[in-house]
């Protein structure tokens, strides 16, 4: 018995126990969201509130999510905007980060500084002028406008994250390809790019996560219900559903599911990217 206690202590299971309690307490709001979403309408107003819905009901999901064309269409819009932002970000950021890491261009450090400054621009400052610019270009109320606007946030971040990955690729590999007669572009695409795949995954994941949750541009650059992302749809429904919190929490959970899925699948890349993005400059 006493050896079991000693082993428990030695291996730090006491800390594990405390850790589990901390995490459970901290993530209670998430639990509460899912729990509320599985309640029947009358059970939301029970006092004391039920921690676990009994019996659980899928009614809110049936009616507010799968039976709601507005939410379904908004989900599709969010997928389009998120994938578009992800692709555009990588297309622009990968060559730029490569150039800034490898090519020793005159003015390179200046570009890096410019990127750091653009990271400061709050969406709310950009939303007004972007609305004006897009109005003149006839782009207001289009997927393109939202993708372009979201990329203003993801691009500087992506270049700053990717540059160190390119720096860590050994120069010799590429020199060999160049000597063999490959052009810069071909050696970049065929030799260097595959070697920075972890960086590309990090950037893709972050661009997708950001665009999926983006709210300010979606709110201010679009008035068309046909292409409104799910974040704006949810915000509108808060007013519409009033006190039907089970419905609202069901939609919230549905909006959160892709985030949780991406995070669960790519956790390693995301945690690394978070710390490197903010500390390495």
């Amino acid at each position, binding site marked *: 018995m006493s050896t079991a206690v000693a082993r428990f202590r030695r291996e730090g299971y006491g800390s594990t126990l405390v850790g589990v309690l901390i995490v459970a307490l901290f993530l209670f709001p998430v639990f509460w969201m899912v729990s509320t979403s599985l309640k029947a309408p009358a059970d939301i107003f029970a006092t004391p509130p039920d921690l676990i819905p009994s019996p659980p009901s899928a009614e809110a999901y049936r009616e507010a999510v799968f039976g709601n064309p507005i939410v379904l269409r908004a989900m599709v819009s969010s997928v389009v905007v998120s994938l578009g932002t992800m692709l555009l970000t990588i297309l622009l950021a990968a060559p730029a980060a490569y150039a800034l890491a490898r090519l020793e261009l005159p003015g390179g450090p200046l570009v890096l500084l410019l990127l750091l400054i653009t990271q400061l621009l709050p969406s709310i400052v950009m939303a*007004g002028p972007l609305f*004006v610019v897009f109005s003149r270009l006839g782009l207001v109320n289009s997927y393109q406008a939202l993708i372009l606007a979201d990329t203003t946030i993801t691009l500087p971040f992506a270049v700053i994250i990717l540059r160190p990955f390119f720096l860590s690729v050994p120069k010799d590999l590429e020199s060999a390809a160049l000597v063999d007669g490959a052009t810069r572009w071909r050696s970049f695409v065929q030799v260097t790019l595959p070697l920075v795949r972890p960086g590309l995954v990090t950037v893709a994941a972050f661009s997708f996560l950001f665009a999926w949750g983006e709210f300010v541009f979606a709110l201010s650059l679009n008035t068309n219900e046909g292409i409104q992302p799910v974040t704006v749809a949810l915000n509108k429904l808060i007013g519409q559903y009033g006190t039907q919190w089970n419905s609202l929490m069901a939609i919230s959970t549905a*909006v959160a599911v892709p985030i949780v899925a991406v995070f669960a699948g790519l956790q390693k890349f995301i945690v690394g990217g978070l710390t490197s993005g903010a500390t390495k400059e």
Partner: protein
Amino acid sequence: MARALPSTAAVPAAAAVRPRRRVRRGLFADYLFLLPALLFIAVTMLYPVWTNLRMSLHDVTVMTFLRDNAPFVGLQNYRDLLADPVFHKALGLSLIFTAGSLAFQFGIGFALALFFNRPFPGNTTLRALLLLAWLLPTVVSGSLFRWMLDGDFGVVNYALVSLGLLDDGRYWLIEPGTALAGTVLANVWVGIPFNMALLLAGLQGIPHTLYEAASVDGATGWQRFRSLTLPLMRPVSLSVLLLGLIYTFKVFDLIYIMTGGGPVDATTVLPIYTYKLTFSFFRFGDGAAAATLLLVGLVGVALLYLWAARREEAS
């Protein structure tokens, strides 16, 4: 490998023949890698900032903004802002929101970082789970806290009343006195994992040997914390706080979703005020002036950050 050798030898010879032209042509091709990103930045970031600056000096209204023929009014928009009591209130609320958020998310984040800095089974998994709060879309966390802080059936009221901390439930987000505190609570929850992750990275950078040496010298846990951890964490703490300052000062969506700036401007911080000027009142000129002031403030903090980082490096 062997096949590459002859061509390697040929390169310097060829370069010697026409050195200048080769460099020029190569350089132009190299800039093509950067060009798309630079064009994008110019069109969607620099031009809008320039547009914003210009609008802030013109009397831009619904009638004039599409045709781009608003009359130039100099600094009148800025004077209007400075004369507007709501602007002053917004500035004050922004400062309270930022200071409150930073104090709690940094403090709790630091405590959690210290806890997770010790190795124990399941450490990495538990830490990653915390990040979930930071990754949730703001609309989701905002709606969620609206529900938890609900006056009639919110779980926060239920908990406080059952614990005997409150006699009666409160309408947290509807009463002017508590609405801002409600938004701070939600923002702290979102920000804790971010602070923890960065501070933990800092703690893990402190060499173990320092602590071992201190233990040999007979330092207690508290002494090691005070004379080793705290001073060594100063640079990291400073950057986390300044980054937090930048991120928190521009928070718009969370507050907009929870309260919309209300009740009666009680949570109208500077970004909300800016948004309302432009998109609710269509006072584009005034909105642009407010946006410019917001930007100037953020650039100021960023310069402070760079200056502090350089000073820490030098010392």
